[in-house]
């Protein structure tokens, strides 16, 4: 099962809405979270290598139908849109996990994949929260996946150029950083065939998990501010020797180099 999330397309400048508690969603376009696209690709690769049924699941978010049909055209077997969630507003990651958890439990997939993070969830909490709600093992920053029987061999990136390879007994929840190949292209004719076939399942979202996390999810935003613009560029002039000395001074003053 692959969980997909729509995000504001950042080709547009985001602005606070008139009441200042959300971004202005009226004029922006939405786009699939790029890491979710990687998760979908990894699921399709897994399906091709070891046989599986791929189910894509998304909340009822703007322009999500096209994303789900694209997933079907790429080779997903089922596409589910969960309706009845607050539309046109921000769904915090805690709430998203609480909505998705009962649905995932009901379908009981062998493996749940989602993007490691998103622009709204830079900490990458979705996979771990879901793992927590479902009492399943989870791993984040996954850059390699191989499934055999009920064991997943997972490569996790640790940072500083290091990674770890481990085995996880399925079912499990994984936050995918990168698929083993670039996300494939779905020819538009195939997407349109999928749209005409109309294989999109619309299901009422289950009641969210009731837990203390929901209280966190209900945190109220009082005010959003646009980032302040400031100019930090400083042009260094003079002969190369002077410029190099100056660069060294700056690096030293910022604590970026020792001695």
């Amino acid at each position, binding site marked *: 099962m692959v969980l997909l999330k729509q995000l504001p*397309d950042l*080709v*547009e400048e985001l602005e606070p809405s008139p009441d200042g508690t959300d971004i202005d969603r009226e*004029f*922006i*376009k939405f*786009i699939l979270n790029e890491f979710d696209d990687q998760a979908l690709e990894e699921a399709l690769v897994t399906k091709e290598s070891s046989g599986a049924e791929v189910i894509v699941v998304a909340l009822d978010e703007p*322009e999500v139908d*096209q994303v789900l049909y694209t997933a079907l055209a790429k080779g997903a077997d089922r596409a589910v849109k969960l309706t009845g969630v607050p539309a046109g507003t921000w769904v915090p990651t805690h709430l998203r996990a609480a909505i998705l958890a009962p649905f995932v439990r009901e379908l009981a997939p062998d493996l749940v994949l989602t993007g490691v993070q998103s622009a709204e969830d830079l900490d990458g909490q979705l996979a771990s929260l879901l793992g927590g709600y479902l009492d399943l093992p989870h791993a984040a920053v996954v850059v390699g996946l191989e499934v055999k029987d009920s064991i997943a061999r997972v490569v996790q990136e640790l940072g500083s150029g290091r990674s770890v390879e481990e085995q996880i007994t399925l079912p499990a929840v994984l936050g995918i950083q990168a698929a083993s190949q*670039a996300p*494939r*292209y779905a*020819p*538009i*004719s*195939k*997407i*349109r065939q999928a749209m005409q076939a109309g294989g999109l399942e619309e299901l009422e979202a289950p009641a969210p998990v009731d837990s203390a996390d929901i209280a966190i999810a209900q945190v109220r935003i009082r005010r959003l501010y646009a980032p302040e613009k400031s100019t930090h560029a400083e042009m260094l002039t003079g002969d190369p020797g002077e410029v190099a000395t100056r660069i060294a001074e700056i690096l030293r003053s910022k604590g970026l180099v020792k001695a």
Partner: protein
Amino acid sequence: MPVGGRKQPPVVVEKPEATAVSTISGRSWELPGMWNRMFEPRVLSDYTATGFARIAGLPGGESLEWCYGCGKCVPVCPVDLVGEYGPRKIHRKVQTGMDLFSSDDLWLCTSCANCLRVCPKEVDMTKVMPAVREAAIGDGMVPAELQDVFEKTFRNGNCLGENPRRRNAWTRAAGVPVRVLPTDPGAVDVLFYVEDYWSYHPRGQQAAQCFARILAALDVDFAILGPEEKTLGDSQRVAGEKGLFEALMEDVAATLDKYEFKRIVTPDPHGFNALKKVYPKYGHNYEVSHYTQFLAPLVDKIPFRSEVRHRVTFHDPCYLGRHNGEYDAPRTILDAIPGIELVEMGRCRENGYCCGGGGGGMWLDGFTANHTSERLSERRVREAAETGADVLAVCCPYEVSRFEDAAKSTGNDQLRVMDIVELVDMAMGGTGAV
């Protein structure tokens, strides 16, 4: 060898001296190379036709195997001039076992149609390449740069991935009112189909503003579709995404059905080509002209106020010239602008060189760079500079950005690249005159 071309020298195969021995008399003869070649398979017959079977089976792919190897197409191929290409070479490679579907060669053709012009067998690469590309895309093989553009076009209705709501943002600085049909419906004479680069590219927007001022000065009753406009998608079609083209066409035709207009005028030769030649095949018929065709008969009425003292050379867009036979309209306008001296490049009109942007080339810059010694646009800019012109005039929205970049990268900063409407507007007095 052409300037900067990366050519393979012909391979000379030396034959060993051979001795033929008679089985009857036992006598032997020394055979010189010339003779023993005659007893070996000839290079021309050393192939099978199997490579053509799949290509010929595709609608549009039939003509590649008609080639009889005369090679007239190779010296006129703009890609061969900066690399190792040309339809005859593709044909030969397929004969000798290349799989065109998975070859990089598939994506280098710019569909400029200069090969078709000289081909005695009418091998039409502008049909072969899109057909094979469509099949390759269906098999999941598409260069990443192009994939990105296809996805953006499908999502937003324009190749730049810009917000459709900003389609008419350029009108604000036009200096004249521009009617937007969705907010101001009702009958109109001319539907100005702005297309992507004039809608969104900063240099294109300037041209769109010039054109709006010219239309206003000529008292033309015109309007645009604004946020409801989507690209006509011709280059996406030639790049192999027929499904995307058809999806766009359905949307465009439905939008056009909603409004009452007499004719369509567009600055984009690619969009013009789609409306004139492809849409009718699907039953969508419109009266359409390229903006140069619309303005050429009206040049006497354009209120020119000042001279434009420039030596100008003109680049024929492939899709206006060779594809649609229009060479005179742009020159009529340039000749009418007071002060302009028009000088032609060696390659012009029917033999005009390609800017490299057609057939998806606009979106394959990095991919193509791995196979050519320089960009086609750079090659063209150097030709333009050789004429001594100080302005390279264009009338295709792809070209301003392509040639401006090329002028910088080839060190020809003295060469200004201007759309014809910018020159007209300059002679009319620009924003100051409205």
